[in-house]
């Protein structure tokens, strides 16, 4: 009996294999997406493991925001090994030949680092020669942007350097990071140390290589807490590896989740085509039952066929996935710290094809279960329809397994449980709403049309709710694709518009900072000489939190039951003034404009920080301002509109409270052109080399550049779903092809012209395209709205023109796919129809 089942299953696919392959092709891309992203992830892990030491470039590093004190120096001595130091800070680099200047990250390096891996430069020998000759290496992108060539001179502070080479790849820094703040390498010995004045930020690092193969983690462990007390951070190969692994795993897992959507959509396509396919095999099944086949074995025949299709799809998808995997490193190159070799990851292939096969089978089972209701009587009477579809426990159990499996997989694949659940929930809602809309559409359209509607329109609309129609499938395929694309577009737009608020006229867009009190007047002078306005001038005092209430941050950190958050640990750049700005709103308490000089200073704390610190009005906070403890009390809590590109502060002190503290000044102006901006920056840097400038429009451009790459990666994965949607759509149209031929022949016999037949089809696809894209877009707006509220915390921004283009494209695409797949329908003769058995 068993042998009969698979033998018959194989024979029965004859003449249908092309069709079955088309059905299964809708899941191929989903499998490909999963296999490619997970195989890539495995390779990435392998690459990171293999090159872990080059990630850090050393066995161990110590790092601090201020020069190491004596005790730390003693520890460094005792650790031994080969050492190499580096000091980094942000400063303006000035290029006399072009007269341009740009804020860069200056790294003063010593010989030795990186001990593992290499700094790649052009020309290659420049990677070490600059240390001896006293020259500089500059980020390749920066050189291109600022038209700098090798041999040019560059000034940082009071030092001049000859540009000896372009930096191509450096340890610890991916291209994305470099875009934000371009790197400049110079010898440590030739740094202008006057730039490292108190109050400005710098990073002091020392890198170790241990020739004795000792375990760096074990060596540093006993020193950790003491070093932490001095605010000295440590980093080992192992930590670096874990950090990268965690970050990149999150990235590729998220992408995998996007790919999984394609698989789900494809499986729905499989389910819907199989349901039509088996309906056409009812007579065959009835005959088999007459001749003694059991109910179970007839169902198995088609389960085997589905399994065969699933296997084939999994096989094809895996192959395609392995090919696509070679593309991913190129797409993600900017975010990767290591070169990823191409290798086929068999676990990823097995997982991807296993999931593909499993999902196909489960979704196929939904229509296959109804085969149990096929009565052998149907061989005697062809008119008998399968009675009302039985949705017994087996059907619901299958649906349950699909739901649990999808959720389980989403949770396992997603970077976090919450994200996995959120994904599963969102997918469920989108599918349900799309399906509901399809049902509603069919219900509305099945009502008798008003008199006067032309025949073509009536017939086209009737096609959408005829028996065996594919409206639901087509709606899902089109709607989900539209939904994904529009959601991405709306999210992008919301994010970008949030940043470009800074582009408003009258808002400052050029900021000078790190201005010593004595430099304030000269800077104002230079700016005004250039004919630019002084829009804002603020003071910044750097401080840390020493204690909240009666517990010091140190205690909190050592107490494993307490929680020391980022708000406890961060460095605060606070200001003092007698008013709130227009980007600040008081939530509770009273803002104190000026301090009387008695008791704790009443400060205004930003709401999120107050939440993190768990403080309320009247609670005390002790700040450590460069060694001096300053007791304060929370006088008010305020919200800050961070999107306003101006100096915003977590903590604002009242006027007169910090007069004695060492402060840095910030001066803001607005330039209208790039040239103007370059000119005033050069003028300031030439006179006051220690003052730094940030051009906000430059930051915006950089941000947009990086964002567009991330968006590209996400779109790359969403593309799988969109393509799958098109395949499902094409499949759905092809399935109903025979039905269409019959109808078209009938219409032709009744005297309809080719034009009429084509018009009827056009009406059908137009209505479908409109309904699906509109639903998809509305859902996307809802999704975009929740993302804008819960993720970006910003008002939704809708690019109406682009959304309109999407809608038009979906409608046109539906028309084109529909017509392409129905090609030749009109040309079939009545005889063809009589002959072909379905």
């Amino acid at each position, binding site marked *: 009996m068993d*042998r009969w089942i698979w033998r*018959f299953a194989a024979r029965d696919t004859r003449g*249908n294999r092309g069709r079955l392959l088309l059905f299964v092709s809708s899941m191929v891309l989903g499998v490909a997406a999963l296999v490619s992203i997970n195989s890539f992830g495995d390779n990435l892990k392998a690459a990171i493991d293999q090159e872990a030491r080059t990630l850090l470039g050393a066995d161990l590093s110590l790092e601090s925001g201020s020069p190491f004190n004596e005790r730390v120096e003693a520890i460094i001595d005792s650790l031994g090994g080969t050492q190499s130091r580096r000091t980094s800070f942000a400063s303006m680099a000035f290029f006399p030949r072009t007269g341009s200047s740009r804020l860069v990250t200056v790294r003063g390096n010593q010989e030795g680092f990186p001990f593992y891996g290499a700094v790649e430069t052009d020309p290659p020998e420049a990677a070490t020669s600059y240390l001896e000759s006293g020259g500089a290496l500059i980020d390749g992108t920066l050189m291109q942007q600022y038209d700098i060539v090798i041999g040019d001179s560059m000034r940082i502070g009071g030092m001049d350097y000859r540009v000896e080479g372009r930096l191509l790849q450096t340890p610890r820094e991916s291209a994305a990071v470099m875009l934000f703040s371009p790197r400049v390498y110079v010898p440590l010995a030739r740094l202008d140390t006057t730039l490292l004045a108190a109050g400005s930020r710098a990073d002091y690092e020392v890198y170790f290589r241990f020739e004795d193969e000792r375990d760096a983690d074990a060596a540093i462990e006993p020193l950790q807490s003491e070093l932490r007390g001095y605010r000295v951070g440590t980093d080992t190969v192992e930590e670096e590896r874990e950090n990268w692994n965690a970050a990149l795993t999150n990235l590729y897992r998220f992408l995998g989740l996007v790919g999984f959507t394609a698989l789900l959509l494809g499986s729905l396509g499989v389910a819907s085509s199989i349901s039509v396919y088996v309906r056409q095999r009812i*007579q*065959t099944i009835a005959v088999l039952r007459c001749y003694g086949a059991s109910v179970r074995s007839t169902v198995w025949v088609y389960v085997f066929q589905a399994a065969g299709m699933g296997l084939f799809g999994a096989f094809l998808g895996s192959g395609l996935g392995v090919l696509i995997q070679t593309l991913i490193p190129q797409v993600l190159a900017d975010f990767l710290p290591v070169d990823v070799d191409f290798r086929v990851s068999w676990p990823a292939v097995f997982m991807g094809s296993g999931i593909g096969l499993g999902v196909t089978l489960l979704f196929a089972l939904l229509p296959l279960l109804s085969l149990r209701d096929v009565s052998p009587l149907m061989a*005697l009477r062809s008119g008998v329809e399968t009675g009302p579809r039985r949705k017994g426990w087996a059907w619901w159990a299958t649906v349950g397994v699909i739901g649990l499996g999808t959720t389980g997989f989403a949770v396992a694949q997603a970077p976090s449980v919450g994200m996995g659940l959120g994904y599963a929930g969102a997918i469920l809602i989108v599918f349900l709403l799309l399906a509901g809309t399809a049902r509603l559409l069919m219900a509305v359209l099945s009502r008798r049309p008003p008199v006067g509607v032309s025949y073509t329109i009536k017939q086209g609309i009737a096609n959408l709710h005829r028996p065996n129609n594919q409206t639901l499938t087509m709606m899902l395929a089109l709607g989900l694709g539209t939904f994904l694309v529009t959601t991405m577009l709306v999210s992008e737009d919301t994010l970008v518009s949030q940043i470009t608020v800074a582009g408003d006229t009258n808002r400052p867009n050029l900021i000078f900072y790190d201005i010593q009190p004595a430099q304030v007047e000269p800077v104002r002078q230079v700016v005004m000489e250039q004919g630019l306005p002084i829009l804002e001038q603020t003071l910044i005092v750097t401080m840390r939190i020493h204690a909240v209430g009666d517990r010091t941050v140190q205690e909190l950190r050592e107490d494993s039951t307490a929680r020391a958050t980022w708000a406890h640990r961060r460095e605060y750049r606070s200001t003092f003034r007698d008013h709130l700005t227009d980007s600040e709103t008081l939530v509770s308490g009273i803002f104190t404009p000026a301090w009387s000089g008695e008791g704790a200073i009443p400060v205004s704390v930003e709401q999120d920080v107050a939440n993190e610190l768990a403080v309320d009005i009247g609670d005390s906070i002790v700040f450590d301002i460069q060694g001096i403890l300053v007791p304060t009390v929370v006088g008010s809590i305020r919200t800050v509109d961070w999107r306003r590109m101006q100096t915003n502060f977590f903590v604002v002190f009242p006027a007169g409270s910090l007069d004695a503290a060492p402060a840095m000044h910030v001066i803001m102006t607005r330039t209208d052109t790039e040239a103007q901006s370059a000119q005033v920056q050069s003028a300031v840097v030439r006179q006051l080399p220690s003052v730094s400038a940030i051009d906000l429009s430059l930051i915006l451009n950089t941000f947009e550049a990086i964002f567009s790459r991330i968006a590209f990666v996400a779109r790359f994965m969403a593309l799988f779903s969109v393509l799958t949607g098109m395949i499902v759509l094409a499949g759905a149209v092809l399935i109903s092809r025979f039905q269409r031929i019959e109808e078209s022949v009938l219409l032709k016999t009744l005297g309809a012209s080719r034009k009429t037949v084509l018009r009827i089809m056009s009406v059908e696809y137009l209505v479908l395209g409109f309904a699906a894209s509109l639903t998809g877009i509305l859902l996307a707006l809802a999704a975009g709205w929740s993302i804008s509220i819960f993720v970006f915390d910003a008002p939704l921004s809708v690019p109406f023109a682009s959304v309109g283009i999407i809608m038009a494209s979906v409608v046109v695409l539906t028309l084109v796919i529909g017509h392409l797949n129905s090609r030749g329908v009109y040309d079939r003769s009545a005889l063809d129809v009589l002959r072909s058995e379905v």
Partner: protein
Amino acid sequence: MTNGKNEVLQVADLTKTYQCGQRSLTVLEGVGFALATGDTCSIVGPSGSGKTTLLGLCAGLDAPSSGNVTLCGHPFGSLSEDERAAVRNEHVGFVFQSFRLIPTLTAIENVMVPAELRGRNNARPEAAALLADVGLGDRMDHFPAQLSGGEQQRVALARAFINRPDILFADEPTGNLDSETGEHVVDLLFRLNREAGTTLVLVTHDLDLAAMTDRIIRLHGGKVVSDTRTATALAAMEG
């Protein structure tokens, strides 16, 4: 299993009622008869009189509202659907009005289906011989779509006999054929039936065709209105 002049089919007081919304429609009422090995019987009556329904019940394709069908000693009433299927596989052959060949199988594969369902994997020579017998020896690897209606029905005949059934059910076997082709098929049907000694239940509204069987059961409105021996039967008895 069956031997001698044992009764192959016993039908007792069969009633079938369909529920159509609120109304119940009685399609068959109190039908009873019995057939022994080798008997041939026609069921005739106007369209809608319940012939196909009766045939379906006799073959265990459907369950009666009341009454019993016993096929080759198996009372269907006490069997599950799959058990009835097993009984059919062992004892029953079918010929349908619209042929019902499986479109994806070749002629010979169609003929082999009942044998393969029984677990026999060596039925090909037998199937080939049967096809040759019905005059389709050179069409064995053709698909149903490549055969004419008469040819398809001859393949169906070969399929009906491959398991050497004890009883053959034929529902309007010539209904979809022109008269000449129909005659040819009928000749074949009776020849094969005679050679195999199979009991035959033939549903038809063609009285000439019915006259070729031993016995005619007339249905009208779901009731047996007459049950007669035919001239053929009388002639056979005399002969």
